[in-house]
């Protein structure tokens, strides 16, 4: 057990140290993702309290949060300079794709909101 806890402490320490080294723009995207997921969790908790009628509104709310979080993660992948696969993708193109997909996501969500 003590080895496990010391392992866990070492794990957390090395994780925080390595994360501190990531560039700022990626950290901003990470913050955005965490906000979106937190909003989704709040909506699920509210649904647990109040009930799921009307279901389409609940779904559109949760899916818009999850959707934008997922799209932000995709943006993070494409903008990350350490990624060999996306070396020749200009970050402007990645951002434009991100905006376009978010636009479609929110337009459909507005139609589904009811």
């Amino acid at each position, binding site marked *: 057990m003590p080895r496990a806890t010391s392992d866990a402490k070492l794990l957390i320490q*090395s994780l925080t140290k390595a994360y501190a080294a990531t560039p700022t723009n990626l950290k901003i995207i990470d913050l955005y993702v965490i906000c979106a997921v937190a909003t989704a969790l709040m909506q699920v908790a509210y649904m647990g309290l109040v009930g799921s009628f009307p279901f*389409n509104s609940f779904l559109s709310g949760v899916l818009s949060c999850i*959707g934008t979080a997922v*799209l932000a*993660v*995709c943006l993070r992948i*494409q903008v990350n300079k350490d990624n060999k*696969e996306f070396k020749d*993708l200009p970050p402007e193109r990645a951002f434009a794709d991100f905006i376009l997909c978010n636009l479609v*996501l929110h337009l459909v969500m507005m139609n589904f909101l009811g």
Partner: protein
Amino acid sequence: MATAALDFLPAPLRSLRLKTKQQELLLRVSALALIYVLAFAVRLFSVLRYESMIHEFDPYFNYRTTLFLSENGFSEFWNWFDSESWYPLGRVVGGTLFPGLMVTAALLHRLLRALSLAVHIREVCVLTAPFFAANTTLVAYAFGREIWDSGAGLVAAALIAIVPGYISRSVAGSYDNEGVAIFALLLTFYLFVRAVNTGSLAWALASAFGYFYMVSAWGGYVFIINLVPLYVLVLLVTGRYSQRLYVAYNCMYVLGMLLAMQIRFVGFQHVQSGEHMAAMGVFFLLQVFFFLDWVKYLLNDARLFKSFLRITLTCVITVGTLALVIGTASGYISPWTGRFYSLLDPTYAKDHIPIIASVSEHQPTAWSSFMFDFHILLFLFPAGLYFCFKRLSDATIFIVMYGLTSMYFAGVMVRLILVAAPAVCLISAIAASATIKNLTTLIRTKSKSPQVTSGKTTGSKAAAKGAVDQSLPFQHNAAIALLLGAFYLLSRYAIHCTWVTSEAYSSPSIVLAARGHNGGRVIFDDYREAYYWLRQNTPPDAKIMSWWDYGYQITAMGNRTVIVDNNTWNNTHIATVGRAMSSYEDEAYEIMQSLDVNYVLVVFGGVTGYSSDDINKFLWMVRIGGGVFPVIKEPDYLVNGEYRVDKGAAPKMLNCLMYKLCYYRFGELTTEYGKPPGYDRVRGVEIGNKDIKLEYLEEAYTTSNWIVRIYKVKPPKNRS
């Protein structure tokens, strides 16, 4: 290479002095243009032979809804409640159909009108399927180029233009969902594979839109939403996880799911139905993979990462299984429903849901159907699989999986040969293209002198080439012989496909043709004759009872209310009609009074030899009726397990309503020279009950060849 390539071109082209790349582009574009026109033209047989009309049964409903859409606009269409079918229940049309086909045809019609080409909507409907089949060839070209190279793409386009498995459901006049759905299916797959290959969000968004189009067009979209997660799972298991895959699948899944839920018929199934849960499971699995990948990159230390991996995996597996178990046990996630469950367990439908089992398209496929619908592609398919395995990449793994899963389902249900056709064409195209390429390379290396060849090849190969110099003459001849054989096979394929299209798949089913005794062609237009009689000689609020096969045609052409139609959404209602048809006349009269029936329509083929008539379908009426009303027992209508209509038939059979309505006055008719009157040409026997008297119905109309017979239900007698 450039000068040699110019040699065999005709003089006018040579004078243009095109570079090789431009020549190749010209050849490719002209080949594609010809294939496009071919795909459209080969589907026009029935329009040329008969007239431009809608075939079969289901397309008539699609035509009627498209007519309604083009006349009343989208909002009315989306909220339409149809009280002319399923009397007295009605049908919520807006929420129970797939609108893709109707919206497409209505948009094409509006576009043509905007260009001042005033065509009737029926012409647009008839030609929608060939138009989209031609577009499918273009998508097949792009897909083949993505998987292998442009040569394979061209061969794939050519094969898919005439493959009978696809033609059967996309002939001109076959205005059905599959005509548009196969285009959407192939487009979605192509866009998704391109997204996986490039890792671009834009392509993934395009594939989400392709998926939306597929969901709006056909219920078979379930195949996509299960194949794509299965493909991702296979990639993960074979160690091909990459961030391109993450981007492609996530964007397509979230956006595709949200878009798909806009179709009311699909509703919330993407989060509640067991058939869609695989996609959600893979979605969460991908998040886990990405998270582990990221932590591994951050940590840079193997031992720490292993312990982290252990913790995460145990957490994830427990949470996942818990969620799945709770969801299924509490009934929130509905299990696989009838139509799709019978794909996994083919015997399920026969025992539990007779309506699904009775449709001829849902029967398992015979070997002859495979040969008929695929011809040489059947043995090119394994060859293509071999080539795909030799050059494994993300794209070839996809096409292999698509091919294998679709071939399995094609073996279970005849109708699904259509879904397998594009995969089989693509894989066969790879085999054909790679083989022909190898053979032509063999021929071309011989035409150069040996020193040039050794100069072109690498050092290690030059020695081998020198050693093999002596066998080159035989290689050359063998290659030419094999090439001729390949061309012969492909030409036989083309001949077979054209013949099959002309003979088997171009009949409108609503107009029948036969050869008279002097060899001339005889046309039986009885169905339309009967529907127009209904339209012109019955009161507008008359209700027609018939078996469900003819419901769509009666509402579309006869413009009258029907009791049951091809939608078959209410089994009890259909069983009521089945019970009425199988009962004695007085019991049936009570049922008909309760349903407000004014006219009864039956189809009878005994005079012409038309074998798809109601007497041949009668046992299904008994089974379906007996499934809900135990008073109808199938053995009552059989004699020693045998189905007979002659003197030795069961007494219940000889006096039931269907028998009486079909054979009324038939006992006086001589149908064939040398046979007694009342000889049924389909069953091949003289009927048992020739002296039929009807008490509660009277004959209203019988068409000129006795194929459709309409009876009027008499009102109840006045008390005397």
